[in-house]
C-alpha cells in the first residue's frame, strides 16, 4: 500500500512533466500564446461578469435567506423555497437564453442570467443553515436577554456560516463555469475564444479560452475555500 502511494506520488510530477514536454513540442503553447492579447482582454471581461453577478447574488441571496428563516415567514418560507427549487432545475443555458429574450443581448442579460443561476444555492443554504441552528441556542440567547437582531448576528449567523459559505462556494463554481455561455448572448468573456475555437476547429484558440477558464474556476474555488476555512469561527468549523 505504502509503496503504491509512493509510486503515485512520483508518477504525478513525472506525468505533468511529460505532458509539458509534449505540449511544448507540439507547438500548442505557441498557438495559445498567439492569442495573448485576447486572453488578457477577455479574462478581464470574464472576471467582471463573475464578480458582478456573483457579488450581486451574495448581496441579495443572503438577506433573502435570512428573511425567509424568520419566524414571521414560517408559513410562507417553504412555498418560496419550492419556487427556488424549481428554479434550480432549469438548466443554466436555458436561464441565459430566457434572460436574452427578456433583456436582449449584451452585458445586462448575461449579468442577469448568471445572477439568477447563482442566487439559488445561496438562498437555499442560508435559509437551511439558519433553520438548522438548534432551538435551544436561540432559547438560551433569548433567556439571557439578547434582542432578536443580536441573536441573529451573534448566535444564528455564526452558527450557520459554514453552510452559508458552502452555498456561496457552489454558487460561484456554477457562476464561473457558466460564464463562458455569456458569449452566446453577447456578454463577452472567455467563451468567445472557446466557441469560436470550436467553430473553426482551432485547438490553440479553443485552449486559449478553456485553460484560463479552468484556472479561474480553480482559483475562485480555492479562494472561497480558504475564506470558509478562515472566516467561519473555530468552534463551529469542521475544517479546523
Amino acid at each position: 500500500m505504502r509503496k503504491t502511494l509512493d509510486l503515485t506520488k512520483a508518477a504525478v510530477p513525472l506525468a505533468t512533466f511529460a505532458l509539458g514536454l509534449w505540449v511544448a513540442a507540439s507547438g500548442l503553447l505557441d498557438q495559445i500564446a498567439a492569442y495573448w492579447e485576447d486572453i488578457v482582454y477577455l479574462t478581464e471581461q470574464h472576471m467582471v461578469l463573475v464578480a458582478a453577478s456573483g457579488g450581486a447574488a451574495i448581496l441579495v441571496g443572503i438577506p433573502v435567506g435570512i428573511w425567509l428563516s424568520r419566524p414571521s415567514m414560517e408559513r410562507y418560507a417553504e412555498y418560496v423555497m419550492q419556487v427556488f427549487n424549481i428554479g434550480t432545475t432549469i438548466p443554466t443555458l436555458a436561464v441565459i437564453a430566457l434572460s436574452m429574450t427578456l433583456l436582449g443581448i449584451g452585458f445586462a442579460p448575461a449579468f442577469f442570467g448568471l445572477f439568477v443561476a447563482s442566487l439559488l444555492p445561496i438562498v437555499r443554504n442560508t435559509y437551511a443553515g439558519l433553520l438548522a441552528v438548534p432551538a435551544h441556542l436561540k432559547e438560551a440567547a433569548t433567556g439571557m436577554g439578547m434582542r432578536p437582531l443580536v441573536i441573529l448576528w451573534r448566535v444564528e449567523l455564526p452558527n450557520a456560516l459554514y453552510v452559508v459559505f458552502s452555498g456561496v462556494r457552489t454558487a460561484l463554481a456554477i457562476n464561473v463555469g457558466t460564464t463562458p455561455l455569456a458569449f452566446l448572448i453577447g456578454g463577452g468573456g472567455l467563451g468567445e475564444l472557446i466557441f469560436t475555437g470550436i467553430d473553426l476547429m482551432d485547438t490553440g484558440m479553443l485552449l486559449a479560452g478553456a485553460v484560463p477558464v479552468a484556472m479561474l474556476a480553480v482559483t475562485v474555488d480555492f479562494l472561497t475555500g480558504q475564506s470558509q476555512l478562515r472566516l467561519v469561527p473555530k468552534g463551529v468549523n469542521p475544517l479546523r
Partner: protein
Amino acid sequence: MIRLDKLTKIFETPNGPVVAADKVSMEVPKGEICILLGPSGCGKTTALKMINRLIPLTSGRILIDGQDTAKLNDVELRRNIGYVIQQIGLFPNMTIEENICVVPKLLGWDMKKARKRAAELLDLVALDPNHFLRRYPKELSGGQQQRVGVIRALAADPPVMLMDEPFGAIDPINREVIQDEFLKMQSELKKTIMFVSHDIDEAVKMGDKIAIFRAGKIEQYDSPDNVLAHPANRFVADFVGADRTLKRLRLISAGEVADAAAPVIGAHGKASEAAAMMREHGAAVAVVTDADHHPVGYVRIEEAEGSGAAAGEIAHPLPATVAAGADLRAVVSEMFAHDTMWLACVDETGRFAGTVTQPAVTRALGETYRQAQAA
C-alpha cells in the same frame, strides 16, 4: 424573593384551550432553592418560563424582590435573571470566555471587568482559567460544559436564577459531583433559585422547598422532609415513592443524631471505669480513643466489667467510622455493610464526636410523626 400570584397560562390549541398553569401561587424566600417537581406535562416548565417571559403569561402576577415584573421590559427582566437549561446552550461559535461574558457585555460592562469575572467564575467551579478561557465548548466534556453553563448564568451576579433541569443530561456520577459543587457555591452566593426537576432524589438533595405539580396545579409546597414524611395526598405519596422514608435519610446528617454523651475512654483509662460509665449511660459499648481523641476501638460492657486491664488492651478494632457531615443514608449503609447496630462518628479533624445507633436513626425519622400526632 420570587412571588407568583395566581399565575395562569392557557394555551389555545386547535383542540381547544389547554390550561398549563392554573392559578399557581407560591413564594420562594430570598436565598432559597425551590424545586418545581412533577411528571412531564405537569406545567412546571411552563411556570418557570413565564418568570422570564419565554412563555407569555395569560394572567397573574410575578414579583421579584417585591417588584412587579410587568413593569420591566423583556430584555431588562431577562438580563437580571440567570437562566440555565438542560441542553446547556453554550454558543459553539464563541470561546468559553465569550460565552461567560455575554450578559455582562449586554449590560455594558467594561470588558476588562467582564474578563476578570469570567476567570473568577471558572476558578469557582474548579476549571483552570488559563486552560479553559480560550477553549470552545466542543472541546469540553459534558460535565465541564454544564459547569460553564451554570457560571455563565451567574456572570452578571443576578439575584434570581431559573434552572430548567440543569443537570438532567449528565451521567449520574458527574451529576452528583456537580450538584455538590453547586450546593457549595449556593451556600456562599445565596441566590434565589427556581429549579425544575423530575427527579425526586435531586429535589430532596437540592431543594429548600419542593413544589409538586400536577396538571398545572401545585399539589403540595413544602420542605423536602415534609413532602416525604407527610405527603398531602395520594398523588404526592405515589410520586415521591414507596421508599420515601428512606429518602428522608439523606436529609439528616450523622452529627445531628450522634449521641455526644456516649461513653468514651482514653486507651490508658481503666476498663472498670469504662464499665461504670456504660452502666450509668445504659450503653453496651464504650469507644476507646487515643491521645488525640481519635477513636481507635471499643470495649464491651461484659468484658470491661471487673477487668483490671487498661481499656486499650481489651479493645476491639472499630469496624468503621462515619463523618459527622455524612447523611444518614451513608451511615445506615455502613451499618448494614458491617452488620453493626452502631458506629462511631468523627468530626472534620477525625476526633470522636459521638456514636450513631440504629435506634437513634429510627427515632430521628419518627420524630416528625410523633409531633404530628401530638398536634
